[in-house]
C-alpha cells in the first residue's frame, strides 16, 4: 500500500532534482485520486441540471456553428469545409486556453487542500489536465457529428488522421508543464492570472481558428507580415492536431516547432519545480 506522504518522502534536501521528480512520479501514482476529482469537477459544474455534462457538447456546438456560419459567409468559404475547420480549431483552442487559465489558478484555488493535506503538488496539475481532457472528449462529439454530415473531399479522414492522437498527446504533455509552471509563478505573483488571461485572449485572434493560414499563404498577394504569425506557439499545436482531423496534408515543421516547445518548456518547468516546489505551500 502506498500513501501520498510516504511516497513523497525522499531523503533529499527540499531543493533537489530527486524531490522534483519524486513529486511528479508520486503524483502520477495517485491517478485514482485525481482521476476521481477530475470527474467530480465536471459533475459538480452540472449538478442538478437535466442534461448534465452534455451541456459542454451543446455549448461547443452552438459556438462553432454560429461562428462557422458567420465567418464562412464573411470570407466566402464553403460551409462544408469551414464549419468543421472552425469546430476543430475551437476544440483544440478550448483545451489550450483552459490549461493556461486554470494553470495560473491551480494552486491558488486548491489552497485549502494544499495547506491541510500532504500531497505532491503535481496531483493538482494532473487533475486539471485530466479535467480538460474530459472536456475535450465531450467536445469531440461535435466533431464526429460534423464528420457524419459534411464528409467530402475537403473534409475526410483516413489512416493518416490517426496522427491526431500523438499530436493531442503532445498537447497534453505541454498542458502538464504549463499548469505546473503557471501555477508556481502565479502563486508567488498574483498579478499573473489576469495577465495570462488577457494574453491568451489576444492570442486567440493571432491563431488560425476563424481564419485559414493556408489561404493566407496561397493568396496571390501574401501580406508581407503573414509569416510572423508562426511566432505564435499555439499555431503549431493547433495545426498538428487539426490537419489530420480534417484530412489535410502533413506539414513537418509544425511538428518540429511543437516538439521543440515541449522540450524547452519541460526543462524550464523542471528547474522551477526543483527550486520552488517546496515554497508553494508557503505561498498559497
Amino acid at each position, binding site marked *: *500500500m*502506498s*500513501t*501520498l*506522504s*510516504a*511516497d*513523497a*518522502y525522499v*531523503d533529499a*534536501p*527540499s531543493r533537489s532534482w530527486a524531490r522534483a521528480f519524486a513529486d511528479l512520479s508520486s503524483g502520477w501514482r*495517485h491517478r*485514482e*485520486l485525481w482521476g*476521481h*476529482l477530475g470527474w*467530480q469537477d465536471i459533475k*459538480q459544474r452540472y*449538478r442538478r441540471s437535466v442534461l448534465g455534462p452534455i451541456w459542454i457538447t451543446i455549448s461547443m456546438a452552438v459556438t462553432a456553428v454560429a461562428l462557422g456560419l458567420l465567418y464562412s459567409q464573411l470570407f466566402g468559404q464553403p460551409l462544408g469545409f469551414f464549419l468543421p475547420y472552425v469546430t476543430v480549431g475551437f476544440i483544440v483552442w478550448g483545451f489550450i486556453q483552459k490549461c493556461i487559465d486554470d494553470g495560473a489558478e491551480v494552486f491558488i484555488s486548491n489552497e*485549502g*487542500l*494544499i*495547506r*491541510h*493535506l*500532504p*500531497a505532491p503538488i503535481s496531483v493538482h496539475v494532473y487533475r486539471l489536465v485530466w479535467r480538460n481532457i474530459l472536456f475535450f472528449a465531450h467536445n469531440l462529439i461535435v466533431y464526429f457529428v460534423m464528420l457524419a454530415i459534411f464528409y467530402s473531399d475537403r473534409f475526410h479522414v483516413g489512416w493518416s488522421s490517426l496522427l491526431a492522437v500523438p499530436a493531442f498527446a503532445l498537447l497534453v504533455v505541454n498542458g502538464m508543464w504549463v499548469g505546473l509552471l503557471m501555477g508556481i509563478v502565479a502563486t*508567488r505573483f*498574483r498579478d499573473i492570472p489576469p495577465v495570462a488571461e488577457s494574453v491568451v485572449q489576444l492570442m486567440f485572434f493571432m491563431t488560425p481558428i476563424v481564419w485559414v493560414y493556408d489561404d493566407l499563404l496561397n493568396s496571390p498577394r501574401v501580406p508581407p507580415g503573414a509569416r510572423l504569425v508562426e511566432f505564435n506557439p499555439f499555431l503549431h499545436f493547433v495545426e498538428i492536431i487539426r490537419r489530420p482531423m480534417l484530412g489535410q496534408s502533413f506539414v513537418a515543421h509544425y511538428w518540429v516547432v511543437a516538439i521543440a516547445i515541449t522540450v524547452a518548456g519541460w526543462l524550464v518547468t523542471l528547474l522551477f519545480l526543483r527550486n520552488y516546489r*517546496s515554497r508553494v*505551500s*508557503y*505561498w498559497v
Partner: protein
Amino acid sequence: MVHIDVQNAWVEFPIFDAKTRSLKKTVIGLGKAGGKIGTDQRVPVIEALRDITLSLRHGDRLALVGHNGAGKSTLLRLLSGIYEPTRGRARIGGRVAPIFDLAVGMDPEITGYENIIIRGLFLGMTRRQMLARTDEIAEFSELGNYLSMPLRTYSVGMRIRLALGVVTSIDPEILLLDEGIGAVDAAFMVKARDRLHDLVRRSGILVFASHSDEFLRQLCDTAVWLDHGQVREQGPLREVLTSYKGFDPFVGWDGDRDDKRQNDREAVSP
C-alpha cells in the same frame, strides 16, 4: 520503522501583501499572540517556528500546548510534510494521516459514502481498499443511513465522526490531530479514544494539539509547550501542563488513567 526527526527546523512565512515599509523596524513581538516578525529582509517574514528539535518514535503520544498562534498548527503541518522547513531539516518516516480542517477535502454536495472514498484516496488508499472499509467506518461513526445523505446535512460533530472513522480505519502510522475534534459528544470521544489508543499501540505516533486538559490527558502522555514558535518546555504531560498553566490541572482528578476511563464508561452508559 516509524519515526519523526526534526532538527533545528524553522518555518518562516513571507508576507507579500503587507506593506513592507510600515514594518521596517527592528523585530516586533506581537504581544502574546502570534510568532515573531523579522523585518531585516525586503519582504516581511513571520517566524512561525524557530529552531525546533523534536524526535518521536513508535508509541509516542505527544500533546502540543501553547496559546493561540504559538505555532501548534504550524508544527503539525511541519510534521505532516505540508511545510518543508526553511532552515534545518525534518525527516518523517511513516504513513501520515492528518485531521486538521474537517471541511477540507470533503465535498458538501456528495454523500458521506463518497466522501469516505475521497478522503481515503487523499490519504493514499485505493478506491477498492476504501470500499472494503466503508462498513467498518459506518459502524464506528454510528452515522447509519446518514451516510447516503449529502455531507451538507451533517453537523460538525458528525463530520468529525466521519473523518475520525476514515483515518482510524486506514491504519496510519503517524496521526496528527488539531483541536477541532473537541466537538464530538462525550460518549463518542470515549470510543474514539480507545480506538486511537489501540492505533498508537499497534503502529505509531500520535501528536495532538488542544486546549482541553481533559482530551490531552486522555490521549497523550508527553507534551511540548510551544511559545512564540519555540519549544519552551518538553517532558511528561503533567509536568509541562503544570508549568504552562502555573498550576497542576490534574489535581483532584483521579490519578490513574484506567480508573478514569472506567469512570467515563460508567458515566456514559445509561
